[in-house]
């Protein structure tokens, strides 16, 4: 502790020794740098597991509440509704989690650590990609939690473990693609809470004007049209097809259009904004 400092001369010798010239390694390459920043994201989860609280609790709350609240009225029984609802809740949970990449980025930039990262001799975007890679852990945790609560309530995945893993991978891809929107947002607004608010304003309509909770057949035609093109709805359709063991290639392709387009557009925008002087 600083309160009982050893005699100054010893410390001085230690500092001299620590600063003595020695061969310097070559700075980390792109892959090492990105992985190192992903490790940083994991350390943050380790030190602040409460960060995962809403990733865990929100899906549980939604699954339990909606199943028992609407199940009987919407699908005749809570069991039947759970079969329909679970893939939807899965998508909703993971999609909401994708805002986190933006939050982390915005927090870093508002602190001095951003200058430190930028003055390092590593590829300048590795902090962004590393953060996004670390966030895949969140998406996966969120998915696993929803499946666990689903199984506890009686959900059956016809496609078995292979289908479950395939859906989790699909969701990871979709959320990672979507998160470029929020990293862009994070570089344009001042505070993390603004990123959060704007993120919710984008995600609320996307998840509710969809087939997450109900079959769109009873919706007015204009809303049905929106749902038909809503990327979140397309993802839910693909997830249901995979988990039901139905032919899924077409729906999966349709679901991946949005993340690919978002990445192509917002990826470069994020990079440009991140490199901008500030």
């Amino acid at each position, binding site marked *: 502790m600083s309160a009982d400092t050893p005699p100054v001369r010893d410390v001085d010798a230690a*500092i001299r020794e*620590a600063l003595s010239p020695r061969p*310097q*390694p070559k700075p980390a390459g792109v892959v090492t740098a990105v992985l190192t920043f992903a490790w940083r994201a994991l350390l943050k989860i380790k030190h602040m597991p409460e960060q995962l609280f809403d990733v865990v609790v929100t899906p549980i709350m939604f699954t339990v509440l909606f199943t028992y609240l609407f199940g009987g009225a919407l699908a005749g029984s809570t069991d039947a509704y759970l079969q329909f609802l679970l893939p939807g809740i899965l998508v909703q949970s993971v999609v909401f989690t994708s805002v986190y990449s933006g939050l982390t980025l915005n927090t870093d930039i508002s602190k001095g650590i951003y200058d430190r990262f930028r*003055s390092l001799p590593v590829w300048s975007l590795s902090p962004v990609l590393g953060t996004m890679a670390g966030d895949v852990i969140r998406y996966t945790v969120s998915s696993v939690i929803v499946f666990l609560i689903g199984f506890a309530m009686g959900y059956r995945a016809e496609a078995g473990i292979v289908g479950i893993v395939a859906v989790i991978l699909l969701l990871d891809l979709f959320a990672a693609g979507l998160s470029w929107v929020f990293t862009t947002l994070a570089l344009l607004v001042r505070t993390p809470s603004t990123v959060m608010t704007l993120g919710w304003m984008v995600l609320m309509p996307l998840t509710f004007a969809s087939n997450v909770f109900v079959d769109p057949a009873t919706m007015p035609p204009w809303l049905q049209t929106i749902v038909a093109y809503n990327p979140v709805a397309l993802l839910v359709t693909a997830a249901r097809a995979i988990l039901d063991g139905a032919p899924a290639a077409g729906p999966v392709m349709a679901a991946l259009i949005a993340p690919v387009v978002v990445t192509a557009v917002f990826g470069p925008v994020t990079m440009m904004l991140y490199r901008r*002087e500030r």
Partner: protein
Amino acid sequence: MTTPSSPAVETHGLTKTFGDKRAVDGVDLHIRRGSIFGLLGPNGAGKTTTVRLLATLLRPSAGTARVLGHDVTAEPHLVRRRVSLTGQFASVDEDLTGRENLVLLARLLGFAGRAARARADELLAAFDLADAAGRQVRTYSGGMRRRLDIAASLISTPDLLFLDEPTTGLDPRSRGRVWDIVRLLVDGGATVLLTTQYLEEADQLCERIAVIDHGRVIAEGTSAELKASVGRGVLHVRLADPLVRPAALRFLAGHLGEPVHAADDPAGLTAQLSDPARAASAVAALASSGFRLSDFSLGQPSLDEVFFALTGHPAETAADNGEGRG
């Protein structure tokens, strides 16, 4: 490669504008290798912007800057390999432990797993942080955080270290410790460019000092040269009765034949002295002329007094400080 003979920093007409504001306005610097150079100025003077330009975080709007022989615009990656920056605000991750912070940076700088951990532990021990290594940085005191911050800049033993206000907000003991570390660094052959608001700090550490105001260098020289232009000491007196201050000011200026000005304190007066020995006679003269004093002291000129002497106006600590970020 750098030529060893090239100066650590050499700028000509270095300029950075943000919109209409010229944050750095035609700065010429020449910093010798192996020296400690100080940029002295109030908030918003352009110190941080200058450092950020030299550390390649900003691109100059005009002028040139060479750092360790490399042009900051043409070869920023070469500059980045040889310099380290310790920013004004802690540039470490508060959520991680001290050790994790150093291991993270060591890995980015190319140390492999075991070597990264060894380097982190070596620095933690040297900077007296070994016992706190496993604690999150948010639990550190200001002095510990600063030491970690500086240690983080020294993982790859840079040739040039930028320290932006390294002791602002530290208690005197921690400040002294940071000064010791800076001196040891330079003993080891590094060059240090530090910014400060304290003349005393520049005086203690720096071989040469540039005083910067509104983005311009308004004076440059050794500490002794600067102080010669300001007076070698400053006498502060505090009157028992603030109402007699104008009369006391005229009396003191007449008695000393040197500049005297009113301090922020409504009962205070500040006099520049070319000969500090005259302080005692000035205090005695004031008292014998009926000006009752509640306090007096002889000190070094503060940044304010340097500014007053050099510019004729007090240092403005502007709120809109054009430092690039708020």
